């Protein structure tokens, strides 16, 4: 049955609910510039009524919960985009260094090829000239030297990326540990039917940081959030984190394993994925091509040498050391130091230049790889240029895409000051009205008490 005390109780409940809503609004306003903050909404519900006979009494309002506004789809896309952006940025940074090694077909190895054949061409005008012969040997040495330095620089870049891979794994393990701790608390709150609020925001922020390092799948379960790598290797399950381990692989590169299984090749996205892509795919591919070019070029020149005679009339010896397989470019050396050993002659006479045509033909003949030496090198230059341009385009596209997604998220989950100000005024008025009810009921109660004690209010 309705009474003054029940009215007082209803007003007190309304005060409490409005106070909670005012707190949420104040928190929103305070966090308007906090990165990753999701605005909070006060969710009111009507309290269950009391039914007495034919009469139903309302029991006022309850503040059911303070709910953070989150869009799971947008969060998922932002996570994915973070991975792609970090991966593209990492690859772009590394590829820019690679591109410096293959900057132009007319520099480095490309220029050395041209200089080498120009010197052979010059030698053909005076095949007995020791100075012209020295020119050919010097050009060959420059070529070998540039093959060495290119391969050495690619190796150094690969080693640098290898160290970064190990650092990435340390960062991932630290983040998954922090996420697991938060995840346990968030799960506890969710099981109690409460909104995780700030803890949820902190967890989301950490997951976004983790996404920048590697591809992360999120699975929401009854016990909280589970995080796995792209291939399903668990990283966080409820309150437990699973650390990734690093071991030195047979090639000297760091392998990554989880629960004893090597998962290196399955890790994609993020800085780690980008580093692995360049370390394990792009650089080895370039090294193989540069090794093949060095090996095939040396074999072709040596073969042309063998078909001629040196200044002393002896059969031509190899100009370059026999080199093949991995490291061929690093092992390429000029095998002769005596200028007279260049096999310019086709008939064994010192004045003959007949075999120089065979040596010059290497410039235009296709190597076993399918193109002549300079075109093969130009293809490498073009390949690195395309890879770099694509990585740069991916960085730009990811940045645009993230701007788009973040602006959408801001519109949904961000704090709108106009809206919050309106809410503030509404809740303030509701609070004032509830306080007025308390004051009125208090005054009525006082009158009732006064009636009981025989005191009447002054007219």
């Amino acid at each position, binding site marked *: 049955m309705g009474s003054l005390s029940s009215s007082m109780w209803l007003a007190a409940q309304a005060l409490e609910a409005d106070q909670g809503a005012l707190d949420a609004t104040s928190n929103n306003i305070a966090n308007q510039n906090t990165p990753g903050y999701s605005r909070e909404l006060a969710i009111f519900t009507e309290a269950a009524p009391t039914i007495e006979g034919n009469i139903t009494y309302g029991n006022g309002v309850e503040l059911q919960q303070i709910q953070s506004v989150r869009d799971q789809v947008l969060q998922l896309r932002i996570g994915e985009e973070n991975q792609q952006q970090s991966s593209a940025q990492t690859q772009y940074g590394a590829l820019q260094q690679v591109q410096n090694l293959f900057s132009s077909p007319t520099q480095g190895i490309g220029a050395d090829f041209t200089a080498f054949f120009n010197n052979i061409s010059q030698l053909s005008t005076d095949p007995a000239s020791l100075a012209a012969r020295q020119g050919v040997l010097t050009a060959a040495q420059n070529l070998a030297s540039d093959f060495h330095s290119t391969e050495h620089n690619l190796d150094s870049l690969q080693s640098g990326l290898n160290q970064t891979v190990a650092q990435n794994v340390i960062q991932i393990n630290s983040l998954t540990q922090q996420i697991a701790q938060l995840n346990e608390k968030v799960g506890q709150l969710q099981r109690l039917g409460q909104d995780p609020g700030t803890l949820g925001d902190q967890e989301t922020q950490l997951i976004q940081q983790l996404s920048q390092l590697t591809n992360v799948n999120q699975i929401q379960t009854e016990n909280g959030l589970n995080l796995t790598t792209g291939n399903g290797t668990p990283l966080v399950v409820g309150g437990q984190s699973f650390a990734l381990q690093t071991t030195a692989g047979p090639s000297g590169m760091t392998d990554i394993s989880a629960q004893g299984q090597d998962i290196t090749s399955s890790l994609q996205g993020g800085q780690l994925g980008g580093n692995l892509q360049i370390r394990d795919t792009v650089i080895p591919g370039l090294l193989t091509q540069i090794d093949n070019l060095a090996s095939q070029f040396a074999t072709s020149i040596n073969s042309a040498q063998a078909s001629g005679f040196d200044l002393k009339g002896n059969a031509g010896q190899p100009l370059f050391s026999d080199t093949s397989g991995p490291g061929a470019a690093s092992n390429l050396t000029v095998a002769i130091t005596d200028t007279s050993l260049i096999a310019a002659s086709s008939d064994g006479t010192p004045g003959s230049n007949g075999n120089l045509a065979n040596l010059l033909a290497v410039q235009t003949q296709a190597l076993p790889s399918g193109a002549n030496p300079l075109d093969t090198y130009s293809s490498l230059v073009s390949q690195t240029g395309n890879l770099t341009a*694509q990585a740069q*385009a991916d960085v730009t*596209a990811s940045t*645009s895409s993230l701007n788009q997604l973040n602006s959408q998220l801001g519109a949904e989950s961000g704090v709108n000051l106009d809206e919050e100000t309106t809410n503030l005024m509404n809740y303030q008025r509701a609070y004032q009205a509830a306080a007025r009810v308390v004051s009125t009921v208090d005054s009525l109660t006082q009158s009732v008490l006064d009636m009981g004690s025989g005191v009447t209010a002054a007219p």
Partner: protein
Amino acid sequence: MRNDDATGKQEQLEHLAQVNALGQAIASAISAIEKNDLTQFETHLATQETICHRLSATKCASLFTAAGIAASAETDRPLSLEIRQAYMALAQLNRVYAALLKRARRSFGLMVALYRTHREGYDRSPSASAQGHTWSCEV
């Protein structure tokens, strides 16, 4: 002969202007996607379509083959270089545009999946993926 040269140069200048305009239309379309401005995006898409039709109809098209570029380089090196640079910038913009559209398709795919989850039988038009290309990508 001089008239032919002048006409040829005029055509090349017009072609260059069209290539630059296409680049601007793509950059604007990228910006519209970033701002979630569908109306602006459609406007820039229509502009791309118009420019691409003009470019494909131009008599200069043959000039931009390898042989054409080599020939024009002999007569007007700076203009030929400028056209080449404009095409390279356009190619890079196209890479960004294609990458951004690919990402937009991913967002769209997630929304489709979400609709499917909530409402069985959501039907995606089979031609939708075929409409994913852009006019500039055709160039």
